[in-house]
């Protein structure tokens, strides 16, 4: 009976609605759906979203690993506070993240850095909301890492750079890739923070999620559903790849 109730709940909440999106995208035929996705405005939004999200994910790969390293291996005053507030972007509502960034980097910026309504603003907003992913996947692995290996390598005369490259990094790679993938999947769907900061100019600063929102508002459900289906497929491919990666890591380790 429990199984039936849970199945019913998840079907009506998640499965049927998501199925409806895919179904709607081809309700005028697959070619009509494809036509919607490849219309100039939608295609521009999708390209922009994918390009910035990929850049943001890669930047997270580097910065997230550095931050995780500093949190695990370095000691300094106030580390506990940094450790606690690193998760703030996950806890903060996305629209609040937008307001927060706008207050310092918007038109009334006290630092005279006004990035509002530019592609830079989209990048900064996405960096903000995806900040914890790589940090939180790499940190536990780094904590568990056996330091005897590093000590052995050092005693054999390996330079710190060599140790980092040949011993530490290979152990971190699966976690780093997982964090990067999750950040990418999150970035392509982000709405709240971006819509507030980017100005949403078609062909220039309009991302896919905003484009979908505008199509819903202008009563073009087929176009909105078609573009949504593309986002869904990309996110599923990323999640599937991460699942594979996890099994590979478990298998290898």
């Amino acid at each position: 009976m429990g199984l039936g109730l849970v199945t019913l709940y998840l079907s009506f909440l998640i499965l049927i609605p998501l199925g409806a999106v895919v179904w709607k995208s081809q309700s005028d035929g697959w070619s009509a759906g494809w036509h919607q996705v490849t219309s100039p405005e939608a295609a521009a939004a999708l390209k922009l979203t994918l390009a910035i999200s990929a850049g943001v994910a890669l930047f997270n790969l580097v910065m997230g690993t550095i931050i995780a390293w500093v949190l695990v291996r370095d000691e300094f005053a106030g580390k506990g506070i940094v450790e606690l507030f690193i998760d703030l972007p996950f806890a903060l509502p996305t629209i609040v993240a937008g307001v927060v960034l706008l207050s310092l980097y918007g038109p009334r910026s006290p630092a005279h850095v006004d990035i509002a309504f530019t592609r830079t603003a989209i990048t900064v907003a996405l960096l903000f909301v995806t900040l914890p992913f790589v940090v939180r996947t790499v940190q536990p692995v780094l904590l568990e890492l056996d330091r005897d290996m590093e000590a052995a390598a050092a005693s054999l005369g390996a330079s710190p750079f060599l140790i980092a490259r040949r011993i530490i990094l290979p152990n971190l790679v699966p976690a780093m890739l997982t964090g990067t993938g999750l950040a990418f999947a999150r970035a392509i769907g982000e709405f709240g923070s971006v819509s507030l900061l980017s100005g949403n100019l078609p062909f220039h600063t309009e991302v896919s999620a905003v484009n979908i929102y505008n199509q819903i508002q202008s009563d073009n459900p087929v176009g909105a559903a078609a573009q949504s289906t593309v986002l869904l497929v990309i996110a599923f491919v990323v999640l599937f790849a991460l699942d594979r990666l996890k099994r590979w890591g478990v298998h290898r380790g």
Partner: protein
Amino acid sequence: MASASGLSDGTVAVRGNRRPVARYGLRFVALGYLLVLLAAPVAMVFYRAFQHGLGPIWSALTTSEARSAIEVTLIVAISAVVLNTLFGVGTALLLVRRRFPGRHFLDVLVDLPQAVSPIVVGLALILVYGKFGFFGSWIERNGLKIIFSLPGMVLATAFVSLPLVVRSVAPVLAELGDEQEQAARTLGASSWQTFRRITLPSIRDALAYGVVLSLARSLGEYGAVTVVSGHVIGKTLTLTLFIDERLQNFDQPAAYSAAVLLAIIAMGSLLISRRFRTRSRSVA
């Protein structure tokens, strides 16, 4: 383990002394980045909100529009959290304790909401429960209203926060094993008694952790809710939508006040959830 940590402490000291440049360099990069991206903007919004004292914030958050937004936010978030707690615990129990065809599928299904854009969530619900959706005519015939009304907002919020309770409770359940539950069963306890007296006490902290996370997520949901709310001031405007609406009317002080209120809630939930997580881990 003791010898390992002893050894590594030595190496860190040696490396630290030999390469202070690399160490301070990395620290500078990491903290500098966090300062520019995270700390400074958050501090700025607090400064903007509090620069004229508490008075303006209080009056901005006690207008009838703001009060109704707070009320709507609480109704929607609490309903979504209740749904997710009941079905989250149920789902976690099924995933961990039972073997049935389609179990792996259910496992994947639970994680789906994390990969779906909030806007797509809103669209998906409209396509099913909206006026022209699958169940639209049935809903209308029965005099109900889901989309552009509170039930739709609850569904949207429950959708996005679905995985949180399941994913906090499931690992603890798996770690506990079911010997005690089976013992209770053989002694004649009903399944409800077993759940209430054996299972629930042992997952209490993990459940509390999941509930706090899901409440925080629910109070702050924006994208999915904005699609299905219809933005009726005083009726279907949550706090996040109120922020957006105030910004569009160039009422910065009210927007900043509501943003700071939500930021404080987020920070509080971070602190509380951290405590429950440590406790639930130490139990397991």
